[in-house]
């Protein structure tokens, strides 16, 4: 009896494939929550990161923010907002977003700021406005790093949303948390497999986006 046996049993059981606690529904829930959190975090982090990176100001504040955010325990924040605010989507979304904003914000800032200044100067010399410089010159060059910031945020959200099953959120974490309570190890390991696969799928999506969106001249050759 090893883990693989349990995984096989979990996926082989037809009861796990439909209904409210079925894999498709739980997967959709997980993806939905993750996309929502990532969307909100990106809506906050990207504009601020682009702006601060373009002007080059606020680096010290951002560095402090990054350190502070890294020090915050993810699981602790989840439980804290849950016991303070009670049941619902909001108490879970707050920590998910709070934890995803700093990687997006700081990486975007670093990405835009570390763009080679000579093409930026050339663009300015050609009479481009600041907005066009940002979106036509700096952003394309900074895109790989910006995407890597979004990727770490997404990966973190997927992983934290799993743990959030402990504080009543749906999604794939349900299998792990419920399985632990029910002493149903098959369910636990099946859930863990699904969560790991989803994390890998997230990586794959970002890899594909990077392939499509980053101009070949910019793609970092390392």
């Amino acid at each position: 009896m090893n883990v693989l046996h349990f995984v096989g049993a979990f996926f082989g059981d037809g009861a796990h494939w439909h209904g409210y606690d079925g894999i498709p529904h739980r997967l959709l829930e997980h993806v939905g929550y993750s996309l929502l959190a990532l969307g909100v975090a990106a809506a906050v982090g990207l504009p601020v990161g682009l702006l601060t990176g373009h002007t080059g100001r606020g680096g010290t504040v951002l560095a402090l923010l990054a350190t502070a955010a890294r020090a915050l325990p993810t699981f602790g924040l989840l439980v804290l907002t849950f016991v303070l605010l009670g049941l619902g989507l909001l108490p879970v979304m707050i920590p998910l977003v709070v934890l995803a904003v700093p990687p997006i914000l700081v990486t975007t800032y670093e990405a835009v700021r570390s763009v080679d200044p000579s093409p930026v100067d050339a663009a300015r010399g050609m009479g481009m406005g600041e907005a066009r410089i940002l979106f036509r010159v700096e952003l394309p060059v900074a895109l790989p790093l910006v995407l890597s910031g979004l990727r770490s945020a997404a990966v973190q959200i997927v992983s934290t949303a799993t743990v959030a099953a402990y504080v009543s959120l749906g999604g794939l974490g349900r299998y792990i948390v419920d399985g632990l309570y029910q002493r149903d190890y098959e369910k636990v390991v099946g859930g863990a497999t699904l969560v790991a696969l989803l994390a890998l799928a997230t990586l794959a999506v970002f890899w594909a986006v990077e392939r499509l969106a980053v101009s070949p001249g910019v793609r970092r050759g390392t």
Partner: protein
Amino acid sequence: MNGFFDIPSDLQHSWLGLVGLHLREALLPVLAGLLAALPVAQVCVRFRRLYPPVLGLTTVLYAIPSLALFVVLIDYTGQSELTVMIPLALYSLVVLVPAIVDGVRAVPRETLAAATAMGLGPVRRYLQVQLPIAVPAILAGLRVAAVSSISLVSVGALIGNNGALGNLLADAMFYHRPALAVNSVVTTAVLAVLVDAALVGVRRLLTPWMPRGGRTAPAAAGRPDPAAHVLGEAAR
């Protein structure tokens, strides 16, 4: 049960006891990760072709949620502290390998040539030249690994109360005492900040030739810090 340091008796530890337990559960894996990362990184530096696949593997491993790794290990190591510590060591390893490789690779060729000319063999060259010069990058990696490890230990509360300070979170739910959750979050965050600061201090001690003061953040200089991409993969 009003004081900040009063801990429910079911946790069988005082507040200080939980802090000690938390530090042990978080930092031993980082140490293990460092010890494993040094040879792995050296192999990657030696055989350049190995590095891209290893880098890909570290990205993939780091993406796998901690809870998934914990529960899969239950089958082998039970609901124990070891089950929490093994994945944390793995995360530390995958954070540290790129940091060390980039740090060691950033040593200028002239420096290495000078060391060879002075008669240093490969081992002494590694220990006395490459490793010390790579210290800032390694410490940057260690900071990320240690801080994220301290944060992740709490998740161990889900697998049979093995989360040290994280167990306070479970109790906050059972007894409906938000104060316990506040205690856990604040204490964990303070521990993370203190350990982070201690590692900055260690870096200063180990690299007396580096300029002091100013920003401790990476990439303070014009060119991107070698460890910058590691820091981008901040803790989860």
